């Protein structure tokens, strides 16, 4: 019995992973084709004034532009999977070096934010459901609606104005390097984390509240109330576990948002992460770096969406059996 159930679940997970990989393949194709669709010649566009026939030829050889497109695509994909992303057009350094450290930084930022935001959001959501329609609930509703409406840079600059300029508590430029201790790093990323946390908490809290209130209309909740169970216990022990599916869904979706939202925040706080590298490279039209970092972002996003799907399915026992 147990074995058969596990097989069903494993099969669905594998199917999702398979779909995810397929999506990634299509995305990598899109990224590659997008560059092919450049109006004009990439070599001449990038070399600009120094585009003599010799330099154009050398450039083409360097980027393997002389090969046929489909051959080049597979060569690119092949070396990408091996970890060789080519060299940056801006400074000629291997892209893998640039990206590796910055990706770790972005993950650090997103990770700390998630660690702070998720427990806070879920607890606030439960409290709001417990005290629904009171002034507490209204207040939370208004502040979360506002936070969702604000552009991230607005929240960021307000926090800088308050906590960095007025209070001089946190740095307005979050530069981190390997020499710092963990606590020093935390201090440096405090403001960007706070900025992103506010937006993410708003989303997750609203969903938690809505999901729990939705469950509260079920018959078994009414049974618990008739039994005389306290409201607090009802929410924590009966409603919440049954609301897990949409809550987990929104949590992981917000994690996916974090991966992307990190871009704007990194620019505001000049944080050495992958997002800032992407924006800089887009401005400088450093295509190989844009391709590589774009693909990494897309892969993380697809992976997190996939996890959201799978977890949502697993946490709702009724969805575990394919119908």
């Amino acid at each position: 019995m147990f074995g058969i159930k596990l097989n069903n679940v494993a099969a669905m997970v594998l199917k999702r992973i398979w779909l995810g990989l397929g999506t990634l393949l299509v995305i990598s194709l899109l990224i590659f084709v997008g560059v092919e669709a450049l109006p004009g010649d990439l070599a001449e566009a990038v070399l600009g004034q120094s585009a003599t026939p010799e330099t154009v030829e050398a450039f083409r050889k360097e980027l393997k532009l002389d090969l046929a497109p489909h051959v080049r695509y597979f060569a690119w994909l092949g070396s990408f999977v091996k970890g060789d992303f080519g060299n940056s057009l801006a400074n000629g350094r291997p892209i893998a070096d640039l990206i590796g450290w910055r990706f770790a930084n972005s993950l650090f930022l997103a990770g700390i934010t998630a660690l702070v935001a998720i427990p806070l959001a879920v607890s606030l959501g439960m409290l709001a459901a417990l005290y629904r329609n009171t002034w507490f609930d209204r207040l939370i509703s208004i502040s979360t609606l506002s936070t969702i409406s604000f552009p991230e840079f607005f929240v960021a600059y307000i926090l800088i104005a308050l906590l960095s300029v007025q209070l001089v508590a946190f740095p307005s430029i979050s530069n981190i390097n390997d020499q710092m201790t963990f606590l020093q790093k935390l201090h440096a990323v405090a403001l960007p984390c706070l900025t992103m946390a506010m937006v993410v908490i708003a989303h997750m809290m609203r969903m938690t509240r809505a999901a729990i209130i939705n469950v509260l209309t079920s018959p078994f909740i009414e049974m618990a109330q008739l039994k005389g169970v306290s409201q607090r216990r009802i929410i924590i022990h009966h409603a919440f576990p049954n609301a897990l599916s949409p809550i987990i869904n929104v949590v992981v979706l917000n994690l996916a948002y974090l991966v992307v939202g990190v871009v704007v925040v990194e620019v505001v706080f000049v944080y050495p992460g992958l997002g800032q590298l992407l924006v800089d490279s887009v401005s400088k039209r450093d295509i190989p770096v844009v391709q590589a970092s774009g693909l990494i972002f897309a892969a993380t996003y697809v992976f997190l969406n996939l996890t959201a799907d799978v977890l949502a399915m697993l946490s709702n026992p009724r969805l575990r059996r394919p119908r």
Partner: protein
Amino acid sequence: MQPIKLLKQSPLSARVGLAIILLNLIVLVLAPMIAPYRETEVVGDVWLPSSSENLLGTDQLGRDLFTRIVFGARNTISIALLITLISFSVGAVGGFLAATLRGWVDQLLGRLVDIIMAFPTLIFALMVLSVLGTSIPVLVVVIALLDSTRVFRLARAVAMDIEVMDFVEVARLRGERLWWIMRHEILPNALPPLIAEFGLRFCFVFLFISALSFLGLGIQPPTADWGGMVRENAGAITFGILTPLWPAGAIAILTIGVNLVVDWFLHRSSELRH
């Protein structure tokens, strides 16, 4: 229902939202008449505080900030509105077509939309912009295309609900053509959720354009644009000068206004159904 009666029954939040939207529309239309100076005119020293000559002070080049915000309203909002209209038309028509024709049309469009939606929007936009440059037409087409996928999903879901109803079948038996059915049977019944979605899409597009301009990859200077103005004046914050908060705040206020009205609209339409 008559507009006046509708207004009288609305909660405070909806009225605030409507007022905000109205204010922005007035500024948008009457921009040249309201602004005291011209859009790119340098009138004083850098980052002056607010005075009788410069209501909100000056920006990082000495231009009057109030003028820039007024023209920024016109530029940013009209582009966001244009993009939303395009994305909405494309998405809604696609969604209705997919729901009415079913079969391979539905499958094809569905797969296409799935693939586009699997991509994080900002990353996709950034990558396309790096290849094609940041001109206004490119911006409009790219963002409209990306956003139309979400409208597609909603339009398709709503249209499928309506399409199975009897009056649509009657219209078909009468021999009405596809376009007629879509326009006269499906569209009027699909309006309430679509209108709400229009508001939400506008907010998203508006914030998205501002974010792109903030990153330097949207509307280019010297055209006044709220996101770009935040970027240009960002340096002032470290001196304790709050200049970048004005355009950023303007963005926030308009988004809140539209959200409040959409919330009220959804609340009303869900009430009417019960």
